[in-house]
């Protein structure tokens, strides 16, 4: 209903971080009231783009104009003044403030510099009701909210400013369903707001967006009309190679081998309820689930970092201590995996120091040899060994983590969203390494936010909902729709053939 003269023009935004070019001349046009979908894999440059637009990151080159008026990038104040609002994927709300404060930050309603409590809470409650979430208490601390509500608050905080350009980065990661979000977007759009909708879920983009763009390795590779675009073709643009040859071919199903890992009736601190599963040697088993369904407690429980209330975990013959048999690649590289200011070699050998220090003293010769071995296994170029790990790209960092895990030669490898924030080429390498590990008789349990990845890589997959397994799929039954349905909670208990 608005004229189709471009309202927002983004001209060749580029941003380089050390070795990698995160954004390589991205240009986009948006009309008033348009919902523009940006599709791309993890690591394609989506979040970097919106942090540049939000003024939190300074681009090397590039300009942005809203309604003809140029915005000075690199100043959050300018971007906000120009009518731009952001809902970040990693939920930008400090845990110790209240919902009301988050809704009005950074412009808290003040009288003579003082924020009047009464006014703040009543205004906030009005906003919450206006945007369809009266259930959330404006006085509650962010930390006391569940993930879904926290995502609601994040989105409402952005929408409530009636922005001219609203950017949503993976908005449905923790939402149970999309109806609430899509209704609000349609209301805003009717009032002339343009929306950039960033996601790696094609179904959502098809449902809400007018136009779409595919980003890969920081470059615009495809403009498409979401309604008519062919899914398989889009996915190939996303991952830049034909879908099937991305994943190593699966072995034919080894029938009735004795399971290497058996988990019986496991429950953990209100997160995992009476869960049982098995993994056979040489098998890659996947777990599909929405955010916060207890998969994290499951993986960290198996790795021995979370104490189980009930149930047992047995590996091979006896139930030997968890740490020896399981090795975990944690979810968030930067805070849980890596020692950023230390060298790649340090990060590689930290878990296996015992083998490098025969008589209590670490011999640099032995350590170098072991590190080289691991680097070879994950084909990490050896000159990287002496560089600080923070100087390496996301992909190489993930390889170092994998190298560390391979070094400790576990019986079962636990991968928690291993390809998050990794460039496409490295993803393929990771898939092949995982398959090689399995072929050598090891068991692999992998959780991923990307359903196609699970379908392509795993021999079998479970879906989890509310801390319970509600579906097991293998062979022909292992399809994206089946996994998505299971993950969304309405898959019935299907046993694999």
């Amino acid at each position, binding site marked *: 209903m608005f004229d189709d003269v471009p309202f927002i023009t983004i001209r060749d935004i580029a941003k380089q971080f050390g070795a990698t070019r995160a954004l390589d001349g991205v240009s986009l046009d948006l009309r008033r009231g348009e919902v523009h979908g940006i599709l791309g894999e993890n690591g394609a440059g989506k979040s970097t783009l919106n942090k540049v637009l939000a003024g939190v990151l300074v681009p090397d080159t590039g300009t942005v104009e809203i309604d003809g008026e140029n915005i000075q990038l690199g100043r959050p104040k300018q971007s906000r003044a120009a009518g731009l609002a952001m809902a970040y994927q990693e939920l930008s709300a400090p845990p110790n403030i209240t919902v009301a404060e988050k809704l009005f930050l950074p412009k808290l309603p003040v009288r003579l510099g003082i924020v009047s409590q009464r006014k703040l809470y009543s205004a906030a409650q009005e906003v919450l009701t206006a945007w369809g979430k009266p259930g959330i208490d404006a006085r509650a601390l962010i930390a006391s909210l569940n993930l879904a509500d926290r995502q609601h608050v994040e989105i409402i905080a952005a929408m409530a400013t009636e922005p001219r350009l609203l950017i949503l980065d993976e908005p449905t990661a923790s939402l149970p369903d999309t109806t609430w979000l899509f209704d609000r977007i349609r209301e805003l759009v009717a009032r002339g707001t343009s929306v950039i909708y960033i996601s790696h879920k094609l179904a959502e983009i098809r449902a809400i967006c007018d136009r779409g763009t595919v980003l890969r390795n920081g470059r615009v590779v495809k403009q498409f009309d979401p309604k008519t675009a062919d899914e398989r073709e889009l996915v190939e643009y996303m991952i830049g190679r034909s879908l099937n040859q991305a994943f190593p071919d699966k072995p034919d199903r080894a029938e009735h081998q004795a399971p290497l890992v058996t988990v019986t009736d496991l429950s953990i601190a209100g997160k995992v309820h009476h869960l049982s599963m098995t993994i056979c040697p040489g098998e890659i088993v996947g777990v599909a689930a929405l955010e916060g369904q207890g998969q994290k407690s499951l993986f960290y429980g198996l790795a021995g970092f979370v*104490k189980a209330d009930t149930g047992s975990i047995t590996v091979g013959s006896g139930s030997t201590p968890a740490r020896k048999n399981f090795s975990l690649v944690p979810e968030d590289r930067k805070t849980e995996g890596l020692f950023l200011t230390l060298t790649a070699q340090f990060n590689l050998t930290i878990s296996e120091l015992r083998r490098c220090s025969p008589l209590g003293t670490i011999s640099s010769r032995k350590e170098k040899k072991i590190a080289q071995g691991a680097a070879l296994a994950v084909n990490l170029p050896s000159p990287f060994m002496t560089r600080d790990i923070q100087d390496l790209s996301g992909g190489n960092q993930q390889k170092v983590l994998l190298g560390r895990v391979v070094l400790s030669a576990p019986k079962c490898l636990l991968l928690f969203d291993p390809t998050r924030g990794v460039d496409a080429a490295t993803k393929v390498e990771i898939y092949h390494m995982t398959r090689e590990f399995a072929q050598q008789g090891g068991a692999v349990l992998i959780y991923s936010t990307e359903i196609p990845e699970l379908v392509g890589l795993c021999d079998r997959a479970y879906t989890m909902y509310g801390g319970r397994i509600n579906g097991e799929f293998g062979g022909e039954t292992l399809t994206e729709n089946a996994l998505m349905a299971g993950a969304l909670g309405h898959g019935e208990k299907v046993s694999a053939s």
Partner: protein
Amino acid sequence: MRIRKRKGLLIAASFVTAASLVLAGCSGGSTNTGNGSKGKIYLNLSYSGNNWQDQAANLAMSVAESPEVQANYSVQKVISGSDPQKQISDIQSMIASGAKLIVFYPISPTALNPVIKQGCDAGVTFVAYDGTVEEPCAYNVSYITGARADNPEQAFFGAQTAQGLVDLLGGQGKIMLNRGVAGTSTDIVHYDSAKAVFDQYPGIQIVTEYYGNWDSSVSQQETAKALAAHPDIDGVWSELGEDGVVKALQAAGMKVPVTGEDTNYFRKMLSQGWPGVSSGSPPASGGIAMKVGLKILADGPNSVPHDIEINLPYVTTDTAKACPGSEFVDGCNFFTNAADQFVTEVFDPALLPESSYTAAMQVAPFDKLVPLPDMSSYAQPEWRRIYTRGSCDAGWKEGPVTTGQVPPGLDGCVQA
């Protein structure tokens, strides 16, 4: 994880509470809380943990716990530490608990004035030993402006030891100064009076000054550093910690005159021919201050002068003499088997004759207290008042003192 963590912290918490109960139990007995009827006397230390403080406190307690005092007074020792707020708080508590007499080592000459004033108004007697306080209503018992027993004109530790060093060097040579704790008035009094003497001899050149913090170990380290820069020095003037100075000189294989205070090791070296002068602050002042306090309680506030000067000890290489046993007999002034850092001036023939090595090492109540002689001869002359009270008496004004005091020309009070 949650369960393991809680169990761990329970252990920490129980450990802490258990320790506190143990302490409460065993500490109850160690100090005798005064009962209602007897008057209350408090001995209040600020610094603690060095030999001087420990010996002075033992002598004071030996006096206070003698039978004749225990008959009508109970005494309690309070250690306040080096935080002025803490000493103020403790003195307030003593006043509140109805103290009659507070014998104390002030952390600062000025910080306690308001609280002492409050105490005096409430009828409490304050007697400060070694360190002095400017509040007029308190009594000062200190050697800082004291004169030598044999010659009342030769006053000020700093000046006399400086003069001694000059005489040993024949008025010529390079010297170093080892001062005490920076920022304290005691250090300033010693330093200024010594400087006044050195400035009168052009041949004497002060090559450097450093701070030994009245501590043997720090003095030894700082002296070693200074010797590296000035291996050609001819003498060292030092405050407390001079045994560290001697050890540093010995390590550097040098034997030059040293003047300092009265540690056992220094006097032992003097007696073995090391050139120098041992003067300095006598821990006996603790015992003397307690006796002065008791006299005030017995004979009233004017029975003793408000400003009491203890004689300045003065031991040279020839007069240093080892005591045979643990008693002070015929002029002996140190003990061969005592620890290096033992402070020797625990005996004053006139004011604390009951004193002994054992009473200084641990509290040994004196069975018979020798009454104090007429204290008027120990009154501080008016012209030295400014050093301890920060200002001159009525009718006097600040000015150089030219007569009646050696060396002439030191700052002081003169008739207005």
